[in-house]
């Protein structure tokens, strides 16, 4: 059956990645993930800079995008006039529809120069901090995080919106009835939906981890572990995109595939966990409408 084929593809991806990376797994073992040196010429492969770059850029992107995504979700589902709702939903979804390569192109020619100017304008005392050290190149962690944030917003905001929709209206009504302001009522709804919202944010995290083209084009592609936002760094997806076709010997290729394998496993875990949270939220939201008194009412 076709469904079985779908299942088979997922398994085949895992199998194929393991098979192709065997050489690297056997040669380097766990040290692969603790070594900082990436020197294909000398046959030295350590993936630490890529893991670091991927996690650092994705977490930064989340820090930037989460409040904005939540704000959008709240605005669209709770605050905005009904006539504005559909167009806004359409526009935020358009943000997700623009191809990654177009973001990358825009990043290279518009965002990076802007970030470079911003970096150059950073006052000297701040530049002493490790977070802002290094020359203002423009390409680097800050540009990557900014572009990732823009790309992640539509995903986490649309799921948060769905989650907010599943909060029973009685929750808000009870809050209003107790004399809550709008903010307090919405906060009650957000609190009620917290599990699902964490799921929505994690779904965005999964997207950010695997994003390739736009990040490759603005992060600077330099395999160095650094805390600095200004430093050019590298991500797992970017190193595969850049070096895969150049990987001449078997070990080099296997090392790249192993990076892909780990990326696959990480995104698999993050996505499964987020689906689980969202599903759990959807399941608990419904029965509680009648079964138990809403927490806001209890407090009174």
């Amino acid at each position, binding site marked *: *059956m*076709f*469904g079985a*084929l*779908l*299942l088979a*593809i*997922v398994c*085949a*991806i895992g199998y*194929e*990645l393991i098979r*192709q990376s065997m050489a690297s797994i056997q040669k380097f073992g766990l040290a692969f993930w603790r070594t900082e040196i990436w020197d294909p010429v000398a046959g030295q492969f350590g993936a630490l800079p890529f893991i670091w770059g991927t996690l650092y850029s994705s977490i930064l992107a989340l820090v930037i995008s989460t*409040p904005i995504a939540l*704000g*959008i979700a709240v*605005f*669209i589902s709770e*605050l905005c006039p009904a006539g504005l709702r559909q167009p806004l939903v*359409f526009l935020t979804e358009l943000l997700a*529809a*623009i*191809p*990654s*390569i177009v973001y*990358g*192109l*825009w990043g*290279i*020619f*518009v965002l990076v120069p802007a970030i470079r100017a911003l970096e150059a304008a950073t006052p000297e005392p701040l530049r002493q901090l490790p977070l802002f050290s290094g020359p203002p190149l423009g390409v680097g962690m800050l540009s990557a995080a900014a572009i990732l944030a*823009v790309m992640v917003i539509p995903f986490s905001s649309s799921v948060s919106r769905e989650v907010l929709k599943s909060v029973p209206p009685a929750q808000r009504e009870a809050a209003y009835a*107790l004399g*809550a302001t*709008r*903010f*307090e009522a*919405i906060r009650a709804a957000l609190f009620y939906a917290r599990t699902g919202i964490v799921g929505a944010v994690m*779904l965005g995290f999964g997207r950010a*981890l*695997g994003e*390739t*083209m736009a990040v490759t*084009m603005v992060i600077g592609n330099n395999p160095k572990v650094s805390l600095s936002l200004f430093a050019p760094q590298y991500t797992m997806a970017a190193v*595969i*995109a850049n070096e*895969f*076709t150049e990987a001449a010997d078997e070990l080099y290729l296997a090392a*790249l*595939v192993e990076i*892909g394998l780990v*990326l*696959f496993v990480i*995104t*698999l875990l*993050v*996505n*499964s966990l987020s689906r689980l949270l969202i599903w759990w939220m959807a399941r608990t939201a419904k029965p509680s409408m009648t079964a138990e008194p809403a927490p*806001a009412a209890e407090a*009174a």
Partner: protein
Amino acid sequence: MNAPLHASPRSVMWRKVLSSAFVAFCGASVVIALVPLGFVLFFVVTQGVRAVNLAFFLQMPKPVGEAGGGMANAIVGTLLVSGLAAVMAIPIGIGSGIYMSEYSGTRVASLIRFAADTLNGVPSIVIGVFAYGVAVLPFKQFSAFAGGFALGVMMIPIIARTTEELLLLVPGSMREGALALGATRARAVCSVVVPAALPGIVTGVVLALARIAGETAPLLFTSFNNRFFTTDLRQPISTLTVQVFTYAISPYDDWHRQAWAGALVLVAIVLVCSLLARFATRRLERMHARG
């Protein structure tokens, strides 16, 4: 979280200010998100329009240093590779979608749904590595087939999930009516349920096509790139996205111009498809509301 509702008497004024600030923040975040969208579209359109002309669609890329030329080979390549992907993904996607909706609630259906969501979340670059192992290595050659395979794998879960959602919208009474008239389950699905949802499914397929036509990462080492015009599916083939990438990271101004033109074409495809889809789903919803 309930503290302000009942505990220490906080001034009403303060709570009102806080509330207005929150509302303002939500409004502002919408603006913050729409600014990049506006900027991207603005630059793509203004930069792209300067470079798009008839030659862009009809001519081949010129060597470095010669001005002009186009991306005719890449446009054809994108159409071919996306077409291959569609041929592969439509039957599998729709088949899985039907299974998930018609047997929803069974354990197998949940498992397939989980697989579809998983596949949907797999980074596109990883799918590229997978396709490289399955469709490039055994033949020792980059090919349009491999590119189509990679994009097809990405397309399956999108189609499967949209099909499922749309079939679940079809009223249960229609299924029951068909079964009551003595139709077998397969018959009821094929002649009653699927036709009712067909316009929506077609829309979903178009949207999925638009999305994968904009993919770059899985094509980098499957269909690779080709400076020449080819329709031979066993050869490496140029695509719009990979060509835009190559041009964007090159040091030549003329190539940058062409990259913007390519981006404009990609964005136009996406925009037209989303608008069409929105229009179509609107009509569909109205139809269901009436029916």
